[in-house]
């Protein structure tokens, strides 16, 4: 019971911080483009970061 709740909280924390973003990308990639080579963790992280900071992502 408590372990399920803790697990949930942990998985929420990982998702909201983007810690598990690469795993999610891999899951998506294997499902939708199984024929193509996925990006490596470092490549994926680099790309996401550049994308995020090229538009308005923080307010006053």
């Amino acid at each position, binding site marked *: 019971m408590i372990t399920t709740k803790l697990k949930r909280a942990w998985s929420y924390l990982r998702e*909201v*911080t983007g810690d598990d973003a690469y795993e999610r990308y891999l899951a998506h990639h294997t499902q*939708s483009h199984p024929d193509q080579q996925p990006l490596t963790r470092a490549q994926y*992280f680099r790309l996401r970061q550049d994308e995020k900071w*090229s538009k308005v992502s923080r*307010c006053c």
Partner: protein
Amino acid sequence: MTASIMPKTILAKLVWAGIAILGASTIGGIAIHRGESINAIWFVVAAACTYLVAYRFYSAWIGAKVLVLDETRATPAERFNNGRDFIPTNKWVVFGHHFAAIAGPGPLIGPTLAMQFGYLPGTIWILVGAVLGGCVQDMVIMFCSTRRDGRSLGQMARDELGPVGGWAALIGTMMIIVILIAVLGLVIVKAMAHDPWATATVVGTIPVAMLIGLYMRGIRPGRVLEGTVIGIALLLLCVVGGHWVDQNEALRSLFDWDAKQSAWFVMIYGFAAAALPVWLLLAPRDYLSTFLKLGVVFMLAVAIVILTPEVKMPAMTEFAFTGMGPIFKGDLFPFVFITIACGAISGFHSLVASGTTPKLLSNEREIRMIGYGSMALESFVAIMAVIAATILDPGIFFAINIDLGKSAEDTVAVISSWGPQYHLTVEQMKALAVEMGLPSLFARTGGAPSLAVGMASIFSETFGGGLMKFWYHFAIMFEVLFILTTLDAGTRVGRFMLQDLGKHVWKPFGNVSSYPMTVLASLIFVAAWGYFLWQGVTDPKGGIRFLWPLFGISNQLLAGIALSVATGIIIKMGKLKYAWVTGLPLAWLAVICTTAAVTKVFSPNPEIGFWSGANFLAGKIADGSIPAEKIAETWAQVVAFRIDAALALFFAIMLWVVIFDMLRMTFRIRSGKSVLPLSESGYIKTNPQLAIGASHA
């Protein structure tokens, strides 16, 4: 359909009636209370009930009747899912991202400054402005963007209103970023000046960020949580290290900067963050400050509820009636509405609510919680800032926030002369400064230091006393990191916008992957905000008195543009009878923005009007009452005030151009003439299997 508009069971009806009555009676209690002090819990309860009732009923009604949210319609995240920027995401995760993006320093600083009028006007505007204005704007713009493949506000303005609206939105956004960064930079400068502890702490956070950047790039790519935990620990170490620097005579003088030196630091930092690769400085610092931000906001809420401190500021000060406020001059109307922009309604949110967040929504019905709900929470942050500012003795609050250019004794005499509740002694201020670990607390303008004093008193009483000076510097570090996040992200985005505009004049300038152009555009953009920052720093009265209103006007102008686009879209959807939902807040913004801009430009009082302020200084130069070594600086102030005047007028004109563009379109529709078609993308039915996205939805 989305949640039903009215509660169904009798129990639910009773509960909601109870919340509504509790909310109404606490607001009434705050409004008519005239005693020595009032408990802060009244504010917390009044605010919570207001947001709950508004969210439950008004946002549900908007969602069902005006926007007609359709949970069977596939969102852009579902249709374009690429595992990168378009990702259907759990709604609580999107809520976290959206709230972290919209919650900036604005709702902390603005309400603090507006407390010179007393707690009542600001509190009412924060509550009413949020539930009828800010939350509605964020929700409707998020809806419009979600129905348009996640397009940005600028693109929507162009598609729906036409090129005039589109250009106004683009140029307006860029000008706002310039003013925003200048005024936030000024807040940092004022918080760091002659506080070696704070300065050393802030400087220390930069290598920490770079270290974490290297860690997440090279050593453990993409391990965000690990990096953040290490980084937060190092940041806390910076606060302790700052104290150590403060104790060491040689190091202390090394970090004892005046306002001008701090301003140079802020400008160099802004340039570095925009020109260096994001992974090295900007992104890791943002991870850290976002954690700190959410953590501190949460801690503050918990501490206020546990501690239930007494609010000591009067409901209305005399400055609410005379317009001669010591923090900034100007009448209650319109300046309380301009000073508190974020926290009630912030145009900047429309930039995040379009373009970024809609690409993550897994279902349209979540627009209500994420758009309306996040803004209600941000408004609650503003209420906490109100509490943190008003629990200080009013005399202390003013002594920190005003710069009279006088000695401690004279400043205390002026403040004490306002009435018995402002009574203050030099010893009191000295004791407080020692407690906070500062050489002096007089004239630490800008809002951040007085907020930090309020937060430090709340935290040290709730979580352990005796550590006041550490809490104070922790609070300062939190505020500065928070502001640097807006500053560096804003400089970078501003640089891209400048390159995008500049390529129409000189094509190579638009090449964002060319390093020389990156450096050039970053330099130009930093120089633009640096100019206004410098103007604030060299102002003998602290600068915040004219830069903050200018920022308020610009932010409300952007809200006006967003609400014009939203109103235009609602009318084009054939819902003219509901156009008041965004039309009324728009009309109110048009009134306050125009009044404020006209007052700031044309007021004959040189303390208020930019033009008369410039003439007043020019007159003083002409009659020889300015010492020779100050003449060049004073001339620079004259020119700067004239530029401020032009800018305020430009903002007001921009707003009316967009409003007229929207009205023109409305009249064309009414008289059966052709207008640009609604640019909504076609209906595609959602596939629940695909839309799930989140594992634990």
